[in-house]
């Protein structure tokens, strides 16, 4: 099953390498990754999407937590949460498709952020399904370039719930 894992880490050089090294060294796969500073500039937040059975996910979260530079590990999948990713799609439609492209952008609440004589660049934000849907629809119109961010996720309300699942309190899982 797919899991979205949120990590608070020390904002130091080499930390990303420790985390990616953990995944590659133990044969786990990173499907998506995004990193950014938090309000506290000494701390970064990472969102990693990975997949595996329960035992593998348990190992991943424990191993991540074992890394000295990792402050907190939260498996978002166990919580009510909101996920978002963003795409920038450069479409080069034929003359007769131009109106359709703009209409699709509007339906998906996308924004045209750049246009040229032959292309539109559309920005769309949403969860994975929404992104995949618009990509499918735009494909026939001729997608020229496509950029996608990693997924970010945030828990819905109820901070206390999160605390329950933070390691190192491994008993809570059993």
């Amino acid at each position, binding site marked *: 099953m797919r899991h979205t894992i949120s990590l608070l880490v020390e904002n130091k050089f080499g930390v990303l390498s420790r985390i990616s090294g953990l995944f590659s060294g133990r044969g786990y796969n990173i499907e998506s990754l995004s990193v950014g500073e938090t309000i506290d500039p000494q701390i970064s937040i990472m969102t990693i999407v990975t997949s595996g059975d329960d035992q593998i996910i348990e190992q991943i979260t424990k191993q991540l937590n074992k890394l*000295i530079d990792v402050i907190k590990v939260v498996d978002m999948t166990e919580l009510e949460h909101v996920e978002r990713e963003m795409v920038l799609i450069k479409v080069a439609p034929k003359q007769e498709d131009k109106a359709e492209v703009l209409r699709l952008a509007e339906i998906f609440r996308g924004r045209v952020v750049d246009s040229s004589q032959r292309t539109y660049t559309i920005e769309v934000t949403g969860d994975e399904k929404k992104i995949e849907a618009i990509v499918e629809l735009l494909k026939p119109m001729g997608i020229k370039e496509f950029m996608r961010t990693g997924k970010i996720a945030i828990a819905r309300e109820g901070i206390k719930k999160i605390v329950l699942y933070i*390691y*190192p309190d491994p008993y809570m899982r059993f």
Partner: protein
Amino acid sequence: MKISGAEIFIESLKKEGVKHIFGYPGGVVLNIFDRLYDNKDIQLILTRHEQGAVHAADGYARSTGKPGVALVTSGPGATNTVTGIANASMDSIPLVVFSGQVPTMLIGNDAFQEADIVGISRPCTKYNYLAKDVRDLSRIVREAFYIAMSGRPGPVLIDLPKDVTASKTEFTWPEIKIRSYNPTYEGNKWMITQAAHLIAKSKKVVILAGGGVILSGGSKELKELAEYTDIPVTMTLMGLGGFPGTHELSLGMPGMHGTYYANKAIQESDLLIAIGMRFDDRVTGKIDAFAPHAKIIHIDIDPTSIRKNVRVDIPIVGDVKRVLTVLNKVLKEEVKEQWNEVCKAWLKQIDAWRKERPLTYTYSNEVIKPQFVVEKIHELTKGDAIIATEVGQNQMWTAQFYKFDKPRTLLTSGGLGTMGYGFPAAIGAQLAHPNKLVIDIAGDGSIQMNIQELATAVINKLPVKVAILNNRYLGMVRQWQELFFSERYSHTKLDESVPDFVKIAEAYGAVGLRATKPGEVEPVLKEAFKTKRTVFMDFVVDWKEKVFPMVPPGAPIDQMLFEKPEEKAEKKLKAVK
């Protein structure tokens, strides 16, 4: 007063109570070596290879419980430490390794003797640092020692650029706090109580004790638990000495070359108490067939060890010594069930297995059996020695036939299986215990992997004894080729290429002795033990001898091969395939 990075290095080590460093000089660490030149508090032991330095520090750490320290130069000096660091990492041994680095200005420029050792060592250290600023140096050293020694111990590497060792600042010794690192020491009381009640309810219980017992200093508590409950104890390779091998409740080692009765007991048990061990594949054999009827209580300080390989019913994260102290208390005070009668039946069953298939070998009058040498060493030392081993048959025979009664008396490369570990480790242990008998039980293959350390032992007057079980083969690999590869001995026959170890010893200024007949074994050992110098003993042993019992790879641990298994081996192998 401002002092240089090199002086801060020395001051910091003094604060940490370090007396000995193992190392090798080079261009970028000259500032530090210059400060060590006339330093009275810290002695540097010059090894003849950086790998030897790290293994020696490792042997020092294993035999004392204190962190081992190594200091090497950049580039090749640093990369040569990698095997030693990985070895310590697999066995959770606390080390602090200092590597020199090219000046910060040149890092990343492919400078002379530059290697990205922080990158290279990242997966095999517990943590590592690049000290970029001299003002951080003392804090980094203090953190490194703290990280190496706390929680599940492990090696930490500090990369020291040359300019950092030269530049000056005030020396401070700041209190450290790492917000993202808080090892769990106290076991969850509720879980421990659950465990106590499960123990009381179960009828066929076995304790599996690992290296964590020794690392946490919990041998006394383990003995108390076993004796109070009458539960038999089997010790993994890393756990040997954590519980007395001569104790009537000891089942010896389990797993691939473990005893029949230990493996049988595990497979038939209804409860396993795993203490400070991590269910290595050499212990479990075929994992799906491991202890099929047993519930499992798993005590370990590292949460990732729990439920990594096997399902666990009661996980207890914590320090072995502290958890066992509480468990013993709960068992004595809160559990009322009487289980002694039940235990007797179980112990009787185990005794029957013990009689059915004891740990044994066939003695010969003509040719020296390697197991006989190990038995003699145990007999003559009465178990009062520090034993190092190399890796392969020598290691397994030592684990089987030398009964370790005390913790920290066996130095062996368990997780990584590093040939060439034993001799430098013995040197490190001898330095820490000048008056103890330290013996490396080696093979003719392994000893040649770090034989250059003879110079280190001789020049430092370290009376390490090396017993080479010389069978002119890479014996363990040969054994696998014989059993599983139709006796096709691809590149395992050393034969006439094996050097004359007596002459080698003499060339380095050590003593060389040789035994070719069983009758010579005892006199040679006695002679060696009373010599106050480094001694190489060349025991010319039966090359045909194999380590038995043996669980073929991929088989459940109670499907073992015993001596003379030619036909059986093939049958078993087919069954496994």
